[in-house]
């Protein structure tokens, strides 16, 4: 049952939710009255969780799993480190990263590496900031977007 359908154009009077945290469970009664004057219409959806039904196996989580592949690094190359992060901003090609949002922080190695990153449904874009480990290093920035419908991302810095 789609409970939103019931009253999306109707007014609500959410009257006295008498329950309190941990102390009661009475719910507001939802009213739907098509005769309510237009001036009474307020932009609040109708419905409470009393009417909500879930599949017993549905666990109320959602997200996205990204298969990340880091290619092997040429043995002759300087060491490289990569931060894969979801929260960043760009101003005139300068990227500022919230490093607390990094889902993966690791070094490239001589062998290919596979990681599975679990992302929030709200995390639709990622930056891979690759740093050569050297003084006055400047990073290489690479990007992934969920809108490309790619569930795998391979990063190769040898080319």
């Amino acid at each position, binding site marked *: 049952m789609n409970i939103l359908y019931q009253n999306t154009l109707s007014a609500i009077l959410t009257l006295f939710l008498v329950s309190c945290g941990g102390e009661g*469970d009475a719910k507001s009664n939802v009213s739907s009255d098509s005769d309510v004057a237009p001036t009474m219409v307020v932009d609040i959806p109708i419905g409470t969780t009393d009417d909500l039904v*879930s599949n017993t196996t549905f666990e109320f989580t959602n997200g996205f799993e990204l298969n990340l592949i880091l290619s092997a690094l040429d043995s002759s190359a300087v060491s490289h480190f990569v931060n894969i992060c979801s929260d960043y901003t760009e101003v005139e090609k300068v990227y500022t990263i919230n490093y607390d949002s990094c889902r993966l922080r690791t070094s490239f190695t001589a062998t290919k590496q596979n990681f599975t990153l679990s992302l929030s449904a709200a995390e639709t874009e990622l930056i891979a900031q690759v740093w050569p480990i050297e003084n006055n290093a400047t990073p290489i920035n690479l990007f992934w977007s969920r809108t490309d419908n790619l569930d795998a991302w391979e990063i190769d810095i040898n080319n």
Partner: protein
Amino acid sequence: MSKFRYYNHVFFFVALLYCQTSSASPFASCPSKAFLMQQAVAQLYGVNLVTGEYSLLSSDLGTNDKINAVGFNFHDNYIYGWGYEWGSIVRIGHDYQAEALTLVDNPGINFFVGDVALSENAYYFYKKGENYGLYKASLDEQAADYLKTIKITDGSTLNMTIFDFAFHPSNEYLYTVDKNGQLFRIDPSSGSKSTLGNVGQSGTFGAVYFDVDGKFYISRNSDGYIFIIDVDAINPTAEFFAYGPSASQNDGARCAVAPVIDDSVPATTDYGDAPDSFGTTLFSNGARHGSSDNYLGSSISFEHTAKVYPSVDQDDGLVFLTPLIAGIDSLLQVQATGSGYLNVWGDWNRDGIFSSNEKLISDRYISDATEVFLVESPFGALSGFTWVRARLSSIAGIVSYGGVSDGEVEDYRVLVTNPGNSQIQDTPFYIAFEDRWPEKGDYDMNDVVIEQNSSILLTENFEVKQIEYSGELKALGAAYHSGFAIQFDNVLPANVDPTLVRFEINGVLQDISPIEDGTEFLVINITNDLESHITLTQTCEYYKTESNCINSSFMNFSVTVPFIVPIAIDIFPEAPYNPFIFGQPDMYHGDSFFHPGRSLEIHLKNKMPTSKADLTMFGVADDRSNANTTYQTSNGLPWALAVNPGSSEEWKHPKERVDFLQAYPQFSEFVESNGNQSSTWFSQINSVPNKTYNF
């Protein structure tokens, strides 16, 4: 009378004839700053003892000679001292002009040691030598003995090589430190002295002060170092306190009844924000800087008192481009506005202290630049989160604590890993509980809300060697008392050495292990009672669930759990793992059970209870749990949700008594589509703002 003395007396007499007779107004109040008199032609400075920051108050005190032996008179708010130009006491008011006063029975020699008493309105001054000694003169204009000099004892009986002394704010004694570091207490009524021990520092301490708490500050002329001494300690020692101004000639005065922090004026001190074991607050002689044009990053904030983790500043000077990798190079980006020497410490052994040898960067000069440095933490640095402190100052060689007149201190909680390790950080989850299980409750999902963060360290063989689990209490809208814990399903507790687990609450290391005994799988018990960690305000019944109910108390935690045998990533449980709340022992938790205590657990839907849960509670009231489907109602609704909004925004929980669907209308479509639609139902743009807690 010798010829010298005769001419001296003539000189003083003539000088006093020309002395200024106008009387300036006193200072308006008892100031928190110390006064420092310097130079051969007297100049007066104001010194912030907190940071050592100083500024010139006056370069023209109306004299062409020195003024010394200064003291602040609490009784009339004037500074008194000895004016060499007149060979007598001078009085200085708020116009900073010295006014000479005529002493009766003037000893006829200049003095450089003096102070004004607090228990009587009198000026005390001293010079060693048998012909001199300790004197006093009343400053009470109404007294019969006003400005009459009284000799208390001679300077051979009271024999000290000292350069200043100061009255204690409450015990009426004078204190001083001689050139060898001996601390003396002097009884001003008799002139007798007690030796309290050597404070461990020597030199010319030309300016000494007390604060209202009885802490004694001594300033060394040669380097300007200010030390603090607890004069009541069994073995008083001079602890470095701040880098102050140096001078060849120095004398100090201070209103001893004033606190060193003046919170009636805008703050001018920058503090760090690490846990106080690292030296953060003034009480702990923490790192602090006076206001200046050189600082880390592009901004700086000032406080009257330090914030201490988890209350934090907005630091912006350092970016750890990589974790600190023990034994090999890592990348650190530093931005400096203005110039100065950069020093960075790291707590490599995680003992809560920055030792002098725990350095990452030493005296690196940086000027108006953003630079990326290669830095190497030591091979033996323990993996996990630790604290790093960065200080920028024009003074080289500073230590990790104490005051500096300029620059900035920033503290960071950073990750240390080992070579070959990868850090996978889970998305943040907000775990929201309804605590009335097995009754459905009001379904506002704010009885307990925890923001949890977790990250795992992987070996190069893709095995989990360590997990870092942290969280913050976001809401407590419950009348019941609940504990909070997390189970790592299928991870055996025997794979953890409890002595290696690091557990902090509000940044304070806990001396109890969070690893719960007697469970089948690993359970980390954060607390048996969440409410015990916060303070409810008088006007609010709950914690951060009611309109306009802001609460400054907080509770956060972090646990670092290394595994004895690393666990293959493929079989390690996935975030959000299995967090749960449980009943507090011997407390009411609804009508369904009598004081169920630890045996009552509330988990996310279809998560397994721990082996300590009482499974006979399943199926009671609204609960329809069975062996395969747990913690759900007959409609399949859970008693707990794990919401992961990503890192860009916080999740806002519903206000008190607001049905979840009223706050998040798209939640119904999300549920009824098994998560295939309205997948970002939790975002703030999809919430009803006046139904969620936004304070």
